[in-house]
């Protein structure tokens, strides 16, 4: 081969390589393309089709509306434009907005609203709603619905109960037999900004814009919610690019992105959006099964023995230690309520235990092995309590056995939560501390007459100032009684790709109506 030919060949090869490199490089790829679809990983099935259920929270927020909503501790209009409590608080009457339609184009009137409450009452689906107290429901006209209570409504908590997820209004065609709410819900037809386009149980739900929604139209053309049950698998899905966002189950306590993975995800370039919620993870005492917990000194000792800053450190500071009030500042009327009485003091804990005659106290803690955050926290608590002379025994078990053991009251302590998503803050506090409520059951916190009186004065009054005063009494009462050990203020997290913009939180719920996405 002569020299000239060699030169031509080398030049051609170099040129070819240069073209190849340019093609493979990111040069020119900096312009991101607008996406029309967002894929979300979520730990629960949306339950868009259900024999007896009402659909999951995410579904009801995407595609549904309720008579009222709760925002910043206040009940605000939604489907109902106004309401009136009358007949000596035996009746509440809602005025329905005119011109509302369901996503299938049918009218939303008082008749359709009644269907949902008929369904919940028929199926005894009362949780957090106060519907068990309803005697009858009347529809005087297309835009009015009256609820009559057996023994008078239970104040503001009952009104807030209409904002509960389970009270999301669906059209009559949602039911197997249209208009018969006791038959299975075969399609979720709501009035929210999105509508369900396709649903495959335990796999995915696709939402598209609801063209009959009277509010502002959503920006994306499609949102697919993929049900990925395992917490770590959801993280792997976003890392692999299979989904664009992960949404915590914003009820809290389960199906959330493990807190110890958030820093890693942030380092990898994902957005971490956090919304603190009026929910506090606590260490609860089983005083129904163990008389020892009735001794306030023991409960106080447990409060003194736990260093909440270390718990926050375990989760890389993504959650805040519950050092101040029993709830974070985002809870209604929390600011200026003052601090808790108990600061980390293992010596004080030891002396209180000695006063109780409980040196070497060995409570058993139930731990759900499927919640890795909980397992790590339990190990940390075990080590921490040891310094105060408390030998915490960990009973780690899978979710099924954990649920059985919890129900069977075979435990001394376990971690769970008080408070909850904002729309549930009234009912949840009442349900955790008032034995007379149906929700109290096996999940009730330590309570006493003074706590019950205080919680009622917090959740019942319609007057905001009275509620504020009541909350102050309630927080003071649980603090005085050392009813539980508040560990950390919980939060809802959304992990999203860098190009996802416009995720907002309304209360504690992430809203995707204004989301745009470029990648």
């Amino acid at each position, binding site marked *: 081969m002569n020299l000239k030919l060699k030169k031509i060949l080398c030049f051609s090869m170099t040129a070819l390589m240069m073209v190849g490199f340019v093609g493979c490089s990111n040069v020119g790829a900096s312009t991101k393309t607008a996406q029309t679809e967002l894929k979300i990983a979520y730990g629960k099935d949306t339950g868009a089709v259900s024999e007896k259920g009402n659909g999951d929270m995410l579904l009801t927020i995407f595609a549904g509306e309720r008579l009222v909503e709760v925002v910043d501790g206040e009940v605000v209009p939604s489907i109902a434009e106004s309401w009136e409590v009358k007949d000596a608080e035996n009746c509440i009457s809602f005025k329905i907005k005119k011109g509302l339609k369901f996503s299938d184009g049918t009218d939303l009137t008082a008749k359709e609203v009644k269907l949902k409450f008929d369904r919940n009452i028929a199926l005894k689906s009362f949780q957090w709603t106060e519907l068990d107290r309803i005697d009858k429901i009347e529809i005087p006209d297309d835009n009015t619905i009256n609820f009559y209570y057996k023994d008078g409504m239970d104040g503001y908590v009952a009104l807030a109960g209409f904002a509960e997820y389970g009270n999301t209004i669906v059209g009559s065609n949602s039911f197997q037999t249209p208009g018969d709410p006791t038959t299975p819900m075969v399609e979720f037809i709501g009035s929210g900004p999105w509508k369900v386009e396709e649903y495959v149980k335990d796999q995915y739900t696709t939402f598209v814009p609801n063209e009959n929604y009277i509010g502002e139209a959503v920006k994306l053309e499609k949102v697919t919610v993929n049900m990925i049950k395992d917490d770590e698998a959801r993280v792997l899905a976003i890392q692999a690019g299979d989904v664009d966002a992960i949404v915590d189950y914003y009820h809290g306590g389960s199906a959330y992105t*493990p807190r110890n993975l958030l820093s890693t995800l942030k380092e990898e370039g994902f957005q971490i959006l956090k919304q603190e919620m009026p929910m506090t993870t606590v260490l609860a005492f089983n005083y129904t099964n163990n008389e020892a917990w009735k001794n306030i000194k023991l409960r106080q000792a447990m409060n003194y023995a736990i260093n909440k800053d270390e718990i926050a450190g*375990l989760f890389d500071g993504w959650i805040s230690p519950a050092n101040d009030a029993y709830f974070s500042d985002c809870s209604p009327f929390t600011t200026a309520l003052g601090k808790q009485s108990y600061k980390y003091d293992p010596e004080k804990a030891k002396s209180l235990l000695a006063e109780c005659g409980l040196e070497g106290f060995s409570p058993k803690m139930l731990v759900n092995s499927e919640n890795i955050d909980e397992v790590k926290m339990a190990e940390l608590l*075990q080590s*921490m309590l040891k310094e105060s002379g408390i030998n915490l025994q960990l009973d*780690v*078990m899978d979710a099924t056995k954990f649920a059985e053991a919890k129900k069977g009251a075979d435990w001394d302590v376990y971690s769970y939560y008080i408070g909850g998503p904002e729309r549930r803050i009234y009912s949840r506090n009442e349900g955790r501390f008032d034995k007379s409520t149906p929700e109290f059951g096996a999940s009730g916190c330590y309570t006493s007459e003074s706590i019950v009186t205080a919680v009622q004065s917090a959740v019942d009054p319609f007057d905001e100032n009275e509620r504020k005063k009541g909350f102050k009494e309630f927080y003071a009462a649980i603090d005085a009684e050392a009813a539980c050990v508040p560990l950390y203020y919980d939060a809802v997290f959304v992990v999203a790709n860098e190009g996802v913009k416009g995720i907002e939180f309304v209360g504690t719920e992430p809203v995707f109506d204004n989301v745009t996405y470029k990648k």
Partner: protein
Amino acid sequence: MGKNLKVGAIMISILAVIVFIGPLIAPYDPYQVNMSVKLQGVSASHIMGTDQLGRDLFSRLIYATGTSVKISLIVVIVSMIIGFVFGSIAAFIGGAVDEFLMRIIDVFMAFPTKIFTIAIAGILGASAINITIALIITSWASYARMVRGCVLTAKELPFIDASIALGANRGYTIIRHVLPSVFQPLSTFAFQRIAHTMMAIVGLSFIGLGVQPPTPELGAMINESKNFMTTAPHLFIFPGLLISYVVFSFNILDDSLRDYWDPRIKSELVL
């Protein structure tokens, strides 16, 4: 003694030191939490780093090895005893008893072992005791079948007939003459099963069905480390290496012992 046997014996001796003397030389309490040093890498104060709760990884590995090896040994010894009893009874009595016991053994051996173990551990619940029970339930049958075969072979040997002809009773004959001839294949088989059992324990703990926190165990430690693969790789590298070491030690010893006890290979080695 072959070279491999020497290597295996040395490796197992080191392992024995880790398991039985290790807790005495562990620099830290394996349960001692120290959040101020969490997820630290290898350093002079923590030669294998620390975990998410600031616990010393080296100390936890020492205890974890003990946990896994002790459970493996218990499983193997108990399974071997049960297998020996049932296998011997089946072989000696024979007839309907043999048929009955063999069909039971067939039933146990018909299930895929791993799935069967997972199912039992799942039903019983995750704990060290339950995993031990689950592994014994799924292991004893293979020992029984092997012992039965060995005993049936030994029964036909002339010196057994001679022993009986000289008036020795059945129990004496079993203990004095049959047992020794079963011991060699049984112990080789048991060594082979230790590594296998160890892997099963590690696997079950990795998927959350085995030893539960805060007890250190190799599989559980690797499970805990998976969220930190990029940020703290030492959390899975050291337990992983240790598992490889333990399994390799038992496998090499098993191979060497089999060669050592095999008369044909032994004679070749001598030649």
